[in-house]
């Protein structure tokens, strides 16, 4: 059990999301940085889909009410346990009474904005419609379907095996960086209405760095740049959409749908961020800029395989460490 001591709001319980519920109007939710969540679970020997706390406003503090192994991944937020600094992407054991403090993310060797606090065994809340992720719009999942509050006591399941601590992983932002002209980039595939935009709009879509405005959250990132204009006004019928879809409302300022996106929409879609790069965008800080890099289906398949290989290597390294230490 842990207790929330300090939160700036918008910290939620998330796993890898809810599948198969869009036909009832329920979106996928899930961690904005799925690689970071899976990595924290790999460090702890949890199931990779185990639920953790996603934190996006700092400082954030929890007290451990019992001994517990934990890992903090995602943004490097200068974590301290009872004022002793912890390396980022590290698995550690806390004693009952220990205070974990996560500060404002350091924008040092990699830039990121969301941290994941993973606990041995995973956060123990009942799955709702197949997932423990918080569904803010529907007010279910996670802790009462809402963001965490000071005083919330959060249980974790018991770990299935002894958890070894004192090791970490090098984050994928360092081992798999992606930039265009030194601006962080994500790969995208053109979507249904791409050809309906003027040539100059299509060119500026690819060419300009898009600013992530403060009106950006788990629902969507509202971007700012030279407006994108269709050759003629577009009114569409409502249809299913997925996280990563880049919609363009009539203002011409695009909105990238993120993990809490509505499951359907009707604004024109110029393109879609590939699933394998959504973690990159999910970590992009407000006020930073991002470039869209056109990709092909085959390249997108390779990108997905690269993520899978990265996770497989993380599992292998964690397994090697456990074998060596366990053999001592």
């Amino acid at each position, binding site marked *: 059990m842990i207790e929330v001591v300090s939160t700036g709001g918008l910290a939620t319980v998330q796993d890898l999301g809810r*599948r198969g519920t869009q036909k009832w109007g329920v979106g996928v939710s899930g961690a904005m940085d799925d690689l970071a969540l899976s990595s924290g679970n790999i460090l702890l020997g949890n199931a990779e889909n185990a639920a953790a706390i996603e934190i996006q406003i700092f400082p954030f503090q929890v007290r451990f009410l019992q001994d517990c192994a934990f890992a903090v991944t995602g943004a490097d937020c200068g974590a301290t346990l009872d004022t002793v600094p912890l390396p980022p992407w590290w698995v550690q054991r806390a004693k009952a009474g220990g205070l974990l403090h996560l500060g404002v993310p350091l924008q040092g060797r990699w830039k990121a904005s969301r941290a994941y606090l993973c606990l041995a065994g995973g956060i123990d809340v009942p799955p709702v419609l197949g997932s423990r992720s918080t569904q803010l719009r529907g007010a279910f999942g996670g802790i009462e379907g809402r963001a965490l509050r000071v005083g919330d006591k959060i249980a974790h399941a018991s770990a299935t095996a002894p958890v070894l601590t004192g090791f970490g992983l090098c984050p994928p932002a360092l081992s798999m960086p992606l930039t265009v002209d030194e601006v962080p980039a994500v790969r995208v595939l053109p979507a249904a209405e791409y050809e309906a935009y003027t040539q100059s709009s299509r060119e500026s879509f690819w060419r300009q760095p898009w600013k992530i405005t403060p009106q950006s959250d788990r629902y969507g990132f509202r971007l700012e740049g030279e407006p994108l204009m269709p050759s003629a006004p577009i009114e569409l019928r*409502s249809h*299913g959409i*997925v996280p990563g879809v880049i919609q363009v*409302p009539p203002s011409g300022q695009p909105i990238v749908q993120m993990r809490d996106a509505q499951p359907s929409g*009707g604004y024109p879609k110029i393109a879609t961020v590939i699933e394998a790069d959504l973690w990159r965008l999910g970590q992009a800080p407000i006020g930073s800029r991002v470039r869209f890099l056109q990709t092909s289906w085959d390249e997108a*398949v390779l990108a997905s395989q690269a993520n899978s290989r990265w996770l497989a290597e993380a599992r292998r390294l964690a397994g090697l460490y456990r074998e060596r230490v366990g053999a001592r």
Partner: protein
Amino acid sequence: MTGDSPRITLLGTSALLFDAPGEVGLITQQRIWALALEAERWPEISEAVPGMNNLMVGFSQLPQRLDQIEARLRAAWEAAAPIPVEGRLIELPVVYGGVGGPHVNDVVAHTALGIDEIAQIHSAPIYQVYALGSHPGYCYLGGMDQRIATPRRKTPALRIPGGSVSIGGSQTGVSASDGPSGWNTIGSTVMRFFDPMIDPPALLRPGDCIQFTIARVIR
């Protein structure tokens, strides 16, 4: 969507969007329901989500190639016979205008109709649920009179309350919970549309019907 053949486009690496040809209509929608039932049985498809005369199909696993899935969808569409659904009828009293209908004047401005006419035209048909989407329990309805069609808002409103009755383009619907919306809210009603602890969690399903009645018009 015009032309005779369906259009299939990509939603990134997660899904395909199948757009039926022709105008929005019940017969086409009944074929979309048939296509959804069929596609959900395919191992390569994780979920089939009906929209308004379209269907989104999510991939169970990232496919190496798309052409086989596309061909299978086209063949299944050709074979899809309309499924007529005799759904339930739910009556919803609506207060048009006022605090609960903050964008009704935009619909007045766009359509050049008065608020009483808009309420009358909006509450006249029996609307059939074509699809669910947007947020938990929300229903997309077919059958709105095109005289009150009004384009979606230039910038979405960040928060409109549950029970809001709104018009977006040629469609109308009722918000099931508080949240952002790009549609024009013309009135409000009260109904619980979703409970995650009930199976199925949504009150209404495709084929069910809604009858709006005028509780009041606030000018």
